[in-house]
């Protein structure tokens, strides 16, 4: 029999606190009601209380706290986006991540292990270099690595040039990384609760009451709750909720799948993403490989996707990481992502007074959690967007001032 390891995997993981949050009955009225008890909703409540002193706040969650996309994402954190607008909010978020453990007094296993975004075609290379240069001028750490440089950061990537889509290089953001999603949510929830925020689970919003163009209340499965202001933070159900207030959003909700392997000895020291072959991979703290892929093509609220997406993802993963061949798929799952036309979020005011919108994050919501929580709280508190979410209005789809983050356009010629 093998002897126990000197340091069992996961031994360094902290214990959770003995107390997290209460399960209160909803009050009749709140100054602010946040709809959606995921990462964004909890963070918004936290910053409302902490930064703006607004504590008569309820976070309404239709299921269990942080049980939606927050529980289902692959936890990648980075800020190396192309456009100034995106750089602004994601880098703001990354800076908050860097102090979040201390801020919340809760270990969130934030690990700045870096992210590689691989390039597989000459146009990929151009787009990547463009992004690296833009990032640097925006004060974001970014490097362009050649294939050998990729190998040095992540030795298990196959950089041989005779494969179907060879690695031509990668962008590298050393400050990027991962965090433990549940711990982040619970850290925010615990801290928000401690400041007096009511976290109300199993409370589904069924209607949004307005009078004279102003929001007045939310109808819920646990009764009517009057609200001075209402913030929508329900990724995956934004369109449905907004429709309750008569708003139509430029969003499509799609399944997004992810998967996890068994615990493995450390082989993968960073995070690797490849848009061209549709896969992103990291090895989590206990040793499991966590992988995600592209979204399913159709609108869907079923929290399930099609298995061919997983199969293709595996084929792509093994091209990049031949050593993964005999790793095992342990569990697959799906979340619902709200995709906007320009792959950027919508965060700000709405035509309904007192109703605020935070949606359309697509696959990028987790990394934005602290940043958007802070900005959205500011927006709600001041009835005015924070400078970092100012570009992300609903009106941009009318004016045409999009923030197109689709990355490289289609390959041509």
């Amino acid at each position: 029999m093998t002897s126990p390891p000197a340091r069992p995997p996961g031994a360094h993981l902290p214990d959770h606190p003995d107390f997290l949050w209460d399960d209160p009955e909803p009050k009749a009225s709140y100054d602010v009601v946040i709809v959606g008890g995921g990462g964004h909703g909890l963070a918004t409540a936290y910053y409302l209380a902490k930064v703006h002193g607004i504590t008569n706040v309820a976070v309404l969650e239709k299921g269990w706290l942080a049980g939606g996309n927050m529980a289902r994402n692959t936890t990648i954190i980075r800020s190396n986006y192309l456009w100034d607008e995106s750089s602004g909010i994601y880098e703001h978020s990354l800076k908050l991540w860097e102090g979040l453990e201390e801020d919340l007094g809760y270990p969130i296993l934030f690990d700045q292990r870096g992210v590689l975004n691989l390039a597989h075609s000459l146009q990929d290379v151009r787009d990547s270099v463009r992004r690296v240069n833009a990032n640097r001028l925006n004060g974001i750490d970014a490097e362009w690595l050649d294939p050998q440089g990729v190998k040095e950061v992540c030795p298990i990537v196959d950089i041989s040039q005779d494969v179907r889509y060879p690695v031509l290089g990668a962008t590298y953001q050393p400050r990027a990384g991962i965090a433990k999603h549940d711990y982040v949510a619970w850290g925010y929830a615990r801290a928000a609760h401690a400041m007096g925020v009511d976290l109300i689970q199993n409370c589904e919003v069924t209607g949004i009451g307005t009078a004279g163009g102003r929001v007045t209340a939310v109808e819920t499965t646990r009764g009517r709750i009057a609200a001075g202001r209402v913030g929508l933070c329900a990724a995956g159900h934004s369109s449905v909720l907004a429709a309750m207030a008569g708003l139509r959003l430029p969003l499509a909700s799609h399944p997004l799948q992810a998967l996890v392997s068994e615990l493995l000895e450390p082989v993968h020291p960073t995070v690797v993403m490849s848009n061209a072959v549709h896969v992103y991979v990291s090895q989590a703290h206990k040793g499991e490989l966590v992988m995600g892929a592209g979204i399913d093509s159709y609108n869907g609220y079923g929290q399930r996707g099609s298995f061919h997406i997983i199969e293709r993802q595996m084929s792509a993963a093994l091209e990049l990481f031949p050593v993964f061949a005999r790793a095992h798929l342990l569990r697959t799952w799906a979340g619902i992502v709200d995709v906007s036309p320009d792959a950027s979020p919508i965060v700000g005011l709405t035509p309904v007074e007192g109703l605020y919108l935070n949606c359309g994050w697509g696959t990028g919501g987790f990394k934005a959690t602290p940043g958007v929580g802070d900005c959205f709280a500011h927006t709600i508190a001041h009835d005015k967007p924070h400078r970092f979410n100012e570009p992300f209005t609903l009106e941009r789809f009318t004016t045409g001032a999009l923030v197109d983050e689709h990355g490289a356009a289609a390959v041509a010629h």
Partner: protein
Amino acid sequence: MQLIPCPWCGPREETEFHYGGQAHVAYPEDPSALTDQEWAQYVFFRDNPSGPFAERWSHSAGCRRWFNAVRDTRTHDLLSVHRIGEPVPDLGEKDEVVS
């Protein structure tokens, strides 16, 4: 992986199809007569219901025909498919069918 019943070829694997989003969104008669808001609605805004959804699919790896379908976005079940030109189904009734 689900089967999508092409109204011409019958049920085929989802991978043979291309998704086309909401159905019955007509190209405006005279775009120049629209306000920016109205034009933006046409270009960017689509229904995104949780429940029955009239949408378009193309059997792109098969007969290459576009068709309309009603699919429940909660279960992903196809409730009905319609060839182009066939009447728009009443979604209200469909809702009760799936419950």
